[in-house]
């Protein structure tokens, strides 16, 4: 296992795409964790003498309608976006892995029911479903984490199912079973670790997607609620002041773009590294 992992990391290190992505991802973590120490102003520091100031030396990225420092709010927003992304992906991965494993391992009626369920879930335009649930349960950071999680597990479920279908016929599974291993042991100890590679890729790309959805929801006023800074709700202010303050629209969007791009590059990079067939292309 160690050598396989060592080999993987060596190949990953040679993949330019993955490395750029990794640098962005790590940098974002540093920003999110250190925001409260390095940001020049508190994120909700209202200064009525500094309303809608364009970028200058005191406020690098300008100030908003309440005179708050845009740069400081951007730094604090990083933590919000990343936590939504990670928790949502954690939830969706867990659901997807469990249902996918059951579907692929047991087959038969279990498989048919779960796969029909996946079909049904895929019929809903995901943004519609998310918004409908938010309309009923109310917007809050916890709700959007949960809602994004429970509406985005279908891809992982199908991936895990496919992996299980091929792995369950392999000799080492038969060996484990003949030694008396139960279903749960075979699923979690023997098959699952061998099918984690595509899940890792899907989860990385999933963070990118979740960050996009969160920013969209917050932009519409149905995600992270002000005064908590999120890149999405900062853009709402950008839209409201679009004719007089371009900096309110440009910088938060750039932060989202860089984050999403980072995770997409890392995910695709890992995929290339894991799949030798794709690597030749």
């Amino acid at each position, binding site marked *: 296992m160690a050598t396989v992992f060592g080999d993987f990391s060596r190949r990953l290190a040679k993949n330019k795409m993955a490395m750029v992505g990794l640098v962005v991802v790590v940098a974002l973590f540093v920003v999110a964790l250190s925001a409260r120490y390095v940001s020049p102003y508190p994120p909700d520091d209202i200064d009525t003498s500094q309303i809608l100031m364009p970028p200058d030396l005191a406020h690098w990225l300008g100030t908003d309608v309440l005179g708050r420092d845009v740069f400081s709010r951007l730094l604090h927003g990083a933590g919000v976006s990343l936590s939504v992304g990670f928790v949502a992906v954690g939830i969706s991965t867990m659901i997807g892995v469990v249902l996918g494993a059951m579907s692929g391992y047991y087959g038969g009626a279990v498989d048919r029911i779960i796969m029909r369920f996946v079909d049904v879930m895929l019929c809903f335009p995901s943004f519609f479903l998310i918004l409908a649930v938010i309309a009923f349960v109310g917007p809050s950071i916890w709700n959007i984490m949960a809602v994004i999680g429970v509406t985005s597990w279908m891809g992982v479920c199908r991936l895990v199912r496919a992996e299980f279908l091929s792995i369950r016929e392999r000799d080492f599974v038969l060996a484990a079973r003949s030694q008396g291993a139960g279903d749960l042991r075979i699923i979690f100890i023997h098959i699952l670790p061998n099918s984690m590679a595509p899940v890792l890729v899907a989860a990385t790309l999933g963070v990118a997607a979740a960050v*996009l959805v969160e920013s969209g929801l917050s932009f519409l006023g149905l995600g992270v609620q002000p005064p908590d800074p999120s890149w999405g709700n900062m853009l709402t202010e950008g839209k409201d002041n679009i004719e007089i303050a371009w900096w309110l*629209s440009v910088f938060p969007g750039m932060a989202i773009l860089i984050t999403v791009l980072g995770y997409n590059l890392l995910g695709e990079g890992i995929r290339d590294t894991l799949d030798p067939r794709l690597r030749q*292309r």
Partner: protein
Amino acid sequence: MGLYILKRLLLMIPVLIGITVISFTVMKMAPGDPISLVTDLNPNMNEETIARLRAHYGLDEPWYVQYFKWLRNMLMLDFGRSFASDNRPVIDKILERIPITLSINLISLALILAIAIPIGVMSAVKQGSVFDKSTTVFVFLGVSIPSFWLALLLMILFGIQLEWLPISGIRSLDYAELSTAGKILDMAKHLILPVFVSAFAGLAGMSRYMRSNMLEVIRQDYVTTARAKGLDERTVIFRHALRNALLPVITILGLSVPGLIGGGVIFETIFAIPGMGQLFYQSVMMRDYPTIMGVLVIGAALTLLGNLLADLGYSLADPRIRVSE
């Protein structure tokens, strides 16, 4: 073929039922019920009135009775009346908005295909070239850019700085006084930005998909055969390879329907386009439950229809599908 269509139609039934079950579950997730929305704000409400209201809307019955009643109404396309001040039947409100959303989506789909297919083919044929590398960069930007941010940037640039294009609505204030040609031109000007924004992300995804299809196909034996018998490269690529690389695109078109319909929420809201997405957003903001449920169910049903059309299209284009099933 008739049998195949029948089979596909029958398979739709369980999925349709599933759609209604999930929608109903979503509706039941609300803390309290729709009545509490009205009663909480009204000081004149007493226990008795509330109980009568609940009985009137059938909310005192067990959930499965409520579900079947709701399902029966749904089958007759009766989604109830909107909670909004106009109090109109939900189905009317949805029907008048579907054409706008559908036409914007169809235009952007056409645009996506017209641009993405040549890009994908070119970058696959010239794999590793400067063109291929720059499309890869474009693809990554395209799938990572938040569409509403792109919309804001374009509004700042073309609407506010250059003043070339209007940034809101689908027609100008003086629309009624324009000539026919003027009307068309006016609508077109209003639609340029929304269509561009709605096509952008799909464009990136589709080019990438087309590229990998094409790379897959040009490795196949029949392409080698075509080359070996001395056909020129153009014929090999466009007659032998492209046709086969296009097949899976039909499925992807079907799969992209929910994204297009759902994505409408954001750009229709930003550009103030009176489509389904904007209606949905407004009803979510107003807690207009009947409209929310109506749009949710119809959106899912439209997706199902899109998938069905894609499946049928695929089986028309590729006889192997019909035989194997």
